[in-house]
């Protein structure tokens, strides 16, 4: 961008001052975490010491505790976190980009009647399950009722909701704090027998992150000129083809940024993970929070765990940063 327009010397210095200043603000706490991970408890408690070997003699006790004493209890959550975060982010991206594209390019107008019917059918299923009807049967029969009634009753209602309403409904799913929904979600997965499995966590995270993907991707897609799609459409390409070979490549920066965001969200989530898992599927944030037990925060162990958690995501960020930068080239090609 603005390649030809070089910054003035003052501008350059000012830019570096701002960038350097914020970089320091970002890095100093991390430096503190790093040194804390090498301190003995008594060195932490006894007022601040800054530089290893100068101010204090570093000790590996915390690292030894996390990697040698705990071993499996550290590695298993780490593996779980990697699997859960990656798969849920990929899923959310897959479902979210298509939905975001759909909401931008097509017009949806589900009628109020149909929505009402659907809700009634769901309610019916819920009541049936409550009355001890097996849930498979309840689900199937309520779906049948829904489709039958849709043909007759549903058509009588003319007014309908639009794309914006659907978008808002999606984002509104994120409004309620997890505290309010964690028990119902727990009960749901308990009935399905999926508690303490990665699958339960993956499904939940996908749903939780989906609205963000939809909204962000919709806005990135908005920047892509419609003419490209129209010409492709006239050439006879199917909507899927257009989406795959025109839209997606053009929005790589957005995809990379969004992927990074949702990855980080599911990488770090705490409360839902706490309830959906117990032994096998526990994730790392639980281990970090657990370091504050009856004896106050165990700063040294916590620091090690934080560092373990950042490392993989940093690698991911370095890899994806390239794609964010590539937007430059794409933009140039577009004209």
């Amino acid at each position, binding site marked *: 961008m603005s390649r030809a327009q070089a910054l003035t010397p003052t501008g350059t210095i000012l830019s570096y001052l701002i960038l350097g200043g*914020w970089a320091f603000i970002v890095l100093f706490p991390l430096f*503190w975490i790093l040194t804390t991970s090498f301190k003995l408890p008594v060195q932490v408690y006894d007022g601040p010491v800054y530089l290893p070997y100068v101010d204090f003699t570093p000790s590996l006790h915390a690292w030894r505790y996390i990697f040698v004493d705990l071993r499996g209890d550290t590695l298993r959550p780490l593996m779980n976190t990697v699997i859960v975060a990656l798969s849920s982010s990929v899923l959310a991206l897959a479902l979210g980009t298509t939905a975001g594209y759909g909401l931008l390019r097509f017009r949806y107008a589900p009628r109020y009647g149909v929505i009402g019917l659907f809700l009634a059918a769901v309610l019916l299923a819920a009541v049936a399950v409550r009355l001890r009807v097996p849930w498979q049967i309840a689900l199937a029969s309520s779906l049948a009722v829904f489709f039958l009634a849709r043909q007759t009753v549903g058509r009588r209602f003319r007014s309908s909701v639009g794309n914006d309403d659907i978008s808002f409904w999606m984002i509104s799913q994120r409004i309620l704090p997890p505290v309010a929904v964690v028990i119902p979600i727990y009960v749901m997965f308990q009935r399905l027998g999926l508690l303490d499995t990665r699958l339960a966590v993956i499904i939940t995270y996908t749903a939780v992150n989906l609205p963000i993907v939809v909204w962000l991707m919709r806005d990135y897609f908005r920047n892509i000129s419609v003419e490209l799609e129209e010409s492709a459409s006239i050439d006879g390409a199917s909507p899927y083809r257009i989406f795959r070979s025109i839209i997606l490549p053009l929005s790589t920066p957005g995809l990379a940024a969004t992927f990074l965001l949702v990855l980080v969200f599911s990488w770090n989530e705490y409360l839902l993970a706490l309830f959906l898992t117990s032994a096998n599927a526990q994730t790392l944030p639980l281990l970090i929070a657990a370091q504050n037990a009856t004896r106050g925060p165990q700063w040294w162990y916590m620091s090690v765990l934080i560092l373990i958690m950042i490392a993989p995501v940093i690698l991911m960020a370095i890899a994806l940063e390239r794609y964010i930068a590539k937007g430059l080239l794409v933009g140039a090609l577009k004209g």
Partner: protein
Amino acid sequence: MLTDRKLRGTGSPNGPVPLSFLGQGLAAWVDRQARFLFLLPAVLLLILLSIFPLIFSVYLSLVRFQLVPGGFRFRFVGLANYRKLITGIEREHFLGLLASPAPLIWALAGVIAAVLLLFVIRGMVRGRSTLPAMAGRAVFALIAGTLVWLILRTLTSGGRPGSLVTTMVYVFIGITVQYWLGLTLAYLTSQHLPGRRFFRVVFLLPMMITPVGIAYMFRILANLGIGPFTPLWEALGLAEVSWASDPWGARIVVMIGDVWQWTPFMFVVLLAALESQPLELLEAAMVDGASRWQTFWRVTWPQILPVTSTLVLIRMIEGFKIIDLPNVLTNGGPGTATESLTLHAFIAWRTLDIGGSAAVAYALLFLVTFMALSYINLVHRRLAGAM
């Protein structure tokens, strides 16, 4: 916008020859249904995971949870959990302590009331508005007026903000700072400065740490006995002063942590938006001899407005749920000064006041829905439509 008919192609005549008639039929059907196949998976998943929890938690907010011999029961209490927050024993905790308004506050409130009234009247005068639209405006004016009145009376001397107003303070100050900081950093790193890739990765770092971890990190950084800034603090002669005992001191520390944590979110999305803007417009501006400042405001800024608007909306929704920082840093103290709505709900939930907790959560839901709808109708539509 492209109409769907244009895109609802029926497969390519030059495409690969289908293996069978059935395959062709299927492919054609799949193509025809493209509109739904794009959206439906996402909608179904959301419905699946949201309807039951939503209904269930509404129900929870209307009951009291009790342990009784043989298990537990939910006793239906109507709106009692909400009444407790607005008029009952939790009122001061939730709404805050209202100061008796000074003349200046009366004047300010009068001005705001007048503006809101004007807004409603203008909506009516314009004529083309329907009844629901007018009602919407009136409701908006009413709620906005009440909120402003609450903010005015709790934030002036003699008053004390409850968890509702505290949360709003966190969100508005937090988002403003984060947005402008994020934009500045994104703009600077989108310039061709040597070393910008290093900065880009560094600036992303805070986002990668789990919020609980960040909260603990700030707790040790802000600690006046063992934190790194202790010598500095003492050198300034402030050894006897503690942020943790002062309501605004504690709130500011929470907000600093929030800004540190969430600026990267703004940064990365805005960076991607800046990177994907078309070059030719910039070049045209440069040819016209516009300065860098002018180019930014006239060309770049309008381009990134839609993303900006979405970003602010998403951050607003997320920001209202702030919990980890106040919870870990101060547990909502001193007193109840730093307690956010989610923390309020969480403390109630942790102590088995499940109905009360759900009521606070739904109060939050109403507040955020109101904010988000107002934002979408007043700001987002215009900005996103500006394209």
